[in-house]
């Protein structure tokens, strides 16, 4: 466990990969299938996507993976062409465990990065008084339990402990004879708690002599998590002497960051033709409660330092996710997907650190089952979006172009389960 936390810290930073600063790289199979997994529940990542789905998994299951995200963002203002945002490559990761305790009860645990955002610009870029650098990282830890109510219906619930760190830098527009501008750096970390619940149903199966068609449904809800940044530290530098009481070398601050709730309803249909092939279609609908992110405020300890309050006024958004999996001989899989993601950021509130846009993104993936114990997944996401909008409160307008490629690799381990029955043996 210690190593996992350590690697988690090395794994950061990361960046937004869905509306707002939500990451959607929590399972490599899901990545390849447009992020639709709430109604699939076929590997341990269901601890995250739908805890109710854990009851489907026999024995002990581990799913672990990471993503390599390479974003590239550039913008153009009325004054300046070609401002490049420096978005570092990010490698968020996930580890899931699900283990059957009894026929009815399954226990699970997860560690992953669900929210994050990193971006930076040249220190002297035009919008430096809005943002120079920002980094937001979060780590979630979730012990989980699932209970099989009935052969067709199971429920699950998890307690979520979230850790967040935040840092940002921007220029302070005051100059002296020796300096042209000051700089503020704010850093803080904090934690918060929430929960994750889900219901999973193998609602219907059509069994024929040589084929089976399974219909599955899932509903899950992840609560919002308020991360209290109680120990923030602000550092001001290059401030003219006469203004140093206002912007002291160091002062504390408090802030709060609300990570939004996500409600998901999804289903899947899987048609299996004996040992030959299977084809699976999945759809998820997410409702992300971004309206909880209404303001971002920093209250400084030093009473002369002007407190900062930014109205975000984000809106709740829907995301549609589609995915298809084709598996040949239970060994080789090819996956395709897409998702249509609405931006929570209204026109007039689009800030250069997070140039989010409503967009259609495409996904793809491959999987290979080495043996009954080990399988590997590869996933890919391609995002490409453009948007022209303003941040009215800052008097800033820009045209943004953003492209992101994500490459993900995951491994699934399965042990302690009875050997997978042959299709014809099933019943």
């Amino acid at each position, binding site marked *: 466990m210690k190593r996992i936390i350590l690697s988690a810290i090395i794994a950061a930073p990361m960046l937004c990969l869905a509306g707002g600063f939500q990451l959607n790289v929590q399972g490599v199979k899901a990545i390849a299938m447009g992020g639709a997994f709430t109604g699939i529940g076929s590997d341990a990542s269901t601890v995250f996507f739908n805890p109710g789905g854990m009851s489907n998994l026999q024995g002990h299951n581990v799913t672990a993976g990471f993503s390599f995200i*390479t974003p590239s963002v550039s913008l153009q203002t009325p004054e300046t062409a*070609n401002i490049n945002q420096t978005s570092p490559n990010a490698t968020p990761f996930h580890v899931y465990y699900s283990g059957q305790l009894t026929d009815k009860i399954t226990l699970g645990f997860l560690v992953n990065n669900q929210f994050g955002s990193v971006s930076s610009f040249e220190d002297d870029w035009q919008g430096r008084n809005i943002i120079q650098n920002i980094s937001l990282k979060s780590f979630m830890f979730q012990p989980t339990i699932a209970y099989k109510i009935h052969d067709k219906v199971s429920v699950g619930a998890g307690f979520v402990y979230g850790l967040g760190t935040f840092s940002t830098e921007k220029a302070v527009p005051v*100059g*002296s004879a020796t300096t042209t501008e000051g700089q503020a750096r704010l850093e803080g970390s904090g934690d918060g708690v929430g929960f994750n619940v889900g219901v999973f149903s193998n609602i219907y199966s059509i069994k024929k002599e040589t084929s089976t068609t399974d219909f599955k449904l899932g509903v899950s809800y992840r609560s919002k998590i308020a991360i209290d940044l109680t120990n923030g530290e602000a550092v001001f530098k290059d401030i003219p002497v*006469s203004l140093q009481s206002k912007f002291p070398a160091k002062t504390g601050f408090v802030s709060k960051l609300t990570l939004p709730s996500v409600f998901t309803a999804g289903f899947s249909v899987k048609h299996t033709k004996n040992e030959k092939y299977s084809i699976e279609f999945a759809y998820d609908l997410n409702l992300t409660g971004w309206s909880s992110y209404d303001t971002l405020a920093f209250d400084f300890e030093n009473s002369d330092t002007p407190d900062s309050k930014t109205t975000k006024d984000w809106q709740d958004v829907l995301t549609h996710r589609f995915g298809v999996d084709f598996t040949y001989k239970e060994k080789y899989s090819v996956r395709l997907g897409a998702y249509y993601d609405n931006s929570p950021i209204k026109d007039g509130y689009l800030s250069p650190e997070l140039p989010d846009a409503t967009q259609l993104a495409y996904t793809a993936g491959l999987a290979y089952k080495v043996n009954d114990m080990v399988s590997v997944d590869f996933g890919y996401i391609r995002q490409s979006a453009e948007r022209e909008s303003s941040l009215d409160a800052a008097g800033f307008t820009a045209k943004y172009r953003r492209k992101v490629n994500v490459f993900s*690799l995951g491994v699934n381990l399965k042990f302690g389960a009875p050997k997978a029955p042959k299709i014809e043996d099933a019943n």
Partner: protein
Amino acid sequence: MKSLKYIGLGIVALGLFSCTKTEYEEFDATNGGAANFTTYIAVGNSLTQGYQDGGLHNEYNQQDNSFPAIIAKQMGTSFVQPTVKSADGSGYRKLLSLAPNITTVAGVSGWNNWDKNAKYNNLGIAGVKLTDCVPTAGDPFSPTINQVVTSGNPFGNFLEFGVPLSTPPVSYLEYVKQSSATFFTCWLGNNDVLGWATAGGDNGTTTIPGLGTLNLSELTPVSVFRVKYDSILDAFQAMGAKGVCATLPDVTSIPYFTTVPHNPIPMDAATASQTNSAYTSYNGGLDSYQAGGAISAAEVSRRKINFTASSSNAIVIEDESLTTLPGLPNIRQATAADLIILPASSDIGRQLDPSNPASIYGVGVAFADSLVLTEAEVAEVQSHTNMLNNEIRTSASNHGVALADMYSYMFELQAGMTFDGVEYGAKYIEGGAFSLDGVHPNTRGYAIIANKFIETINSYYGSNLKPVPVQNYRGIIFP
């Protein structure tokens, strides 16, 4: 082992995609639209010359970044300015602490030793009035008067107006006619109202031997303004130049008139009663004149002086518009409608005679008329500004040139503007856009003004000049 294949595949794919760039195309080359920016000439006064902090100086490229110089850079055209020869230039004001404690840096002698043969694009002259730029038709003395006034102005020394006086005088208008401009900005006229206003509503009367009496800061009559403004635009029209004219800001939108409060005098009960007793005979005298029918009850109540135990007593001011009453001074306490000029801030509460505690300025001794723009004078200067602006609008429209409405824009600035995350306003020092003299913008303020001109030029002529990022220019230099 086979899984390695997929990792390998991933790495290959990664290599392919990581080269992706998302750069935008560069902006189009500057396109003048219906305008031609080959030779840009700026006419105007201190605002055009790049004056700020009470002087023309270049310590941090202040003059280099005059608003027309910023515009010219965006036009991509060469622009020659009569730049001061040293950082200190004519001298300027400098912030020593946030108290605010401001000192004046001495000017350098010879700062205005410009090459009079150079062909300048920036013809702005600090302090010049439109009425001094153009000889008055039918007035044989006018060219000489103009010559004397403009020649006597060191900020105009880069042009030869005809010195010694025996040579035929050359008017500012002549220089406009010789400028061969293809494009111009004209922001003349501010001093035709502002000079009177900054003098506290005073004509600045002076006598020049042989020429008679001149009113250096009087409000230029509208009819005179109209003819002279037209003749400037006629001159540009004659050479086929397109351009943009700017309206004059209202004095109440600049910190010079809005910074010093009318009621800054703190007093305890004992001092108030002592001060009031000193005004007993003045207040009683007003009552007697009212009883005799010389003044109205309304004037009496306006003039009676009364201090209270409070932190916000109004200062006592002279007001020439009050009825003259033998034996009584024309004084009253200021109201919020009276504007105290910025340089008077250090006079408030000053004991004029160190040995006489009753000589505190604004309490025992009335503020001089020249330090206060009284309510009536404010109304007069506002109405005059509106009339002159109407002339500017009409003239610009008649000559088919664009109009930058700086009158409205300065009120917008007063209400607050935000550029790239930085807020600006018209408040002294804190507002961030005005320089330490409270009248002229600082370099960021000039960038804001340049952007307004650029916006106006683009929308009128269909050109595509880029605005500038305001924060890339220097703001107030804090100690």
